[in-house]
């Protein structure tokens, strides 16, 4: 079926509770492999309940395993995160423009994730690791509210243990066991010792956080067109016809969700665009 409105059923193969409100599903896409680029998203439909935009958080090299990391925040995500292996979700997609991982070849790359922002950045990170030789320094800077809110903590540990990556994690509020840095993620960026001439920044998280990340990167001299952000807007069609996700001249679903700061930076200064 080629109707872009019609979801394809896919069975949940596994479910992992990431944090108290966030779950990672692996869907069986073997019948209709989802070839996606890091940063793209799909529309996930829970039968009869509603559809939401969710970034692919899995490995782009494995199109028959569709991985999503979903936080239960509302009327649709809550019941979706309650599903179990064997249950079925409807899937449309993938949609949207990817992170500029190809353009970044040869550069140093910094990924800055805030909270759930790690989900859309994970495929980019996996891509960097899988093609490690094509990139200079690769940094993953992660911020979370508390240690308990950290996504993929085990993997973070494993990545941090590698010698060819720089992974740093900071939290807003520490608990007893926390030994890492405390504070906003932009601090990590301040201290990353980047070479502005050869660095690309890709960031995803709350809009204010991305704004501060971009501002810091610009301050360090990284040009606006080397800074990419990923946006969230209300999305109903994901194919650029329903109008909901318009942001300035862009449809976030079609022209984004990943944007260069050169294109969108000014919009962050005007409320309600």
């Amino acid at each position: 079926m080629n109707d872009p409105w019609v979801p394809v059923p896919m069975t949940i193969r596994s479910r992992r509770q990431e944090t108290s409100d966030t779950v990672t599903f692996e869907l069986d896409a073997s019948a209709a492999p989802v070839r996606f680029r890091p940063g793209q998203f799909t529309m996930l439909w829970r039968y009869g309940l509603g559809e939401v935009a969710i970034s692919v958080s899995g490995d782009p090299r494995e199109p028959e395993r569709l991985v999503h990391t979903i936080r239960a925040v509302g009327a649709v995500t809550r019941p979706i995160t309650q599903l179990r292996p064997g249950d079925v979700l409807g899937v449309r997609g993938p949609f949207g423009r990817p992170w500029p991982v190809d353009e970044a070849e040869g550069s140093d790359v910094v990924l800055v994730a805030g909270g759930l922002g790690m989900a859309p950045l994970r495929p980019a990170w996996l891509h960097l690791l899988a093609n490690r030789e094509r990139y200079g320094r690769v940094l993953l800077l992660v911020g979370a509210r508390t240690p308990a809110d950290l996504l993929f903590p085990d993997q973070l540990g494993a990545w941090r243990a590698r010698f060819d990556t720089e992974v740093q994690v900071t939290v807003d509020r520490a608990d007893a066991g926390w030994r890492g840095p405390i504070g906003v993620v932009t601090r990590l960026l301040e201290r990353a010792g980047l070479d502005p001439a050869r660095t690309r920044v890709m960031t995803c998280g709350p809009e204010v956080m991305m704004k501060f990340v971009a501002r810091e990167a610009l301050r360090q001299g990284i040009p606006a067109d080397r800074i990419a952000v990923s946006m969230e807007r209300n999305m109903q069609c994901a194919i650029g016809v329903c109008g909901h996700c318009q942001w300035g001249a862009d449809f976030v679903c079609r022209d984004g969700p990943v944007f260069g700061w050169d294109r969108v930076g000014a919009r962050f200064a005007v409320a309600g665009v």
Partner: protein
Amino acid sequence: MARALPITHLQALLDRLGADGRTVVGPVARDGAVVLEPVRIVDELAQGWRDEQAPGRYRLVPGEPRVFGALLGPQSPKTWLYPAKLTLFRAERDGASFRTTSPDRPPRLALLGLRACDLAAIRLQDRVLLGSGVEDPAYASRRREVLLVAVQCHRSAETCFCASMDTGPEVSSGYDLRLTEVIDERGHRLVVEAGSEAGRAIAADLPLVDVPHDDDAASRQAAEARAGQSKSLRTEGLRERLLDALRGPHWDEVATRCLGCAGCTMVCPTCFCTAVADVTDATGAAERVRRWDSCFHTEFTHVHGGPTRAELAARYRQWLTHKLATWHDQFGTSGCVGCGRCTTWCPAGIDLVAEAERAATAERRTE
């Protein structure tokens, strides 16, 4: 030599358009306005009416015995090609999984009595719904099948500004048939010109008569309509002027007058925003229903945590700057065809042309 259909044979046109099972949709007077509704017999058409339009005001008054004497009502081709409410798909459970079925085939349509701006609006919707990567199947299937029968305007309404938008008043392309309604000492007739193969085939089946000197009837009428058009939108540099004015003071002012009712977007022939809702019935069968939505609704931009355009001022700004500025970026053209519907049908009488001018020239707010 022009070919014309004597008005006494108008039924033949309706019959021919409705042959092969098409629904013919034409101008009908209903509840104080001309609307587009299915017509089978000539008597159903809005003959003898004339529209008076002004910001926030529309009146249908008796006029000449013209069949197409009233110009534009609150409806447009969008009403039929991109319906206000539509089922996108149905689904039912299939064990743990589900099965989807596509909606029923849409009706084949003939739209009768469209104006130059209506044809322009269809071209614009084509760009959005067919020409920007992914096709919208519901629109595509209606659009591909439709016959477009346009009428040359013989006058302009007070709210018309198509001339300044370069979309009219001449009906110049995009039609299957073009009709020019002429009433003179030689009688009452429709000069018929075909604009496509399908149009030619229809014209060939009609009892047309040769009428000398009617060849330029369409351009004569267009010239009259143009001469009578007093409203115009200053389009040069408008995109830049509006985008420069995003922080201007004007938006807050217009938001004190705007009702936020979405009336303008609903009647606008190019506005395409829709919302979908998933519904289930008592048996558990599911359906996704799409309805016209509007950037004037707060829920339109709802994300977890609240709408991104919570203020009415921001929503009005979105409508105006999208229509007149960012459409250019998105679709290479203005999103406005100058039909004036948004202005006439705004209960508060907010005038798009006047607001665009005010917004674009309002003093900049100092940071």
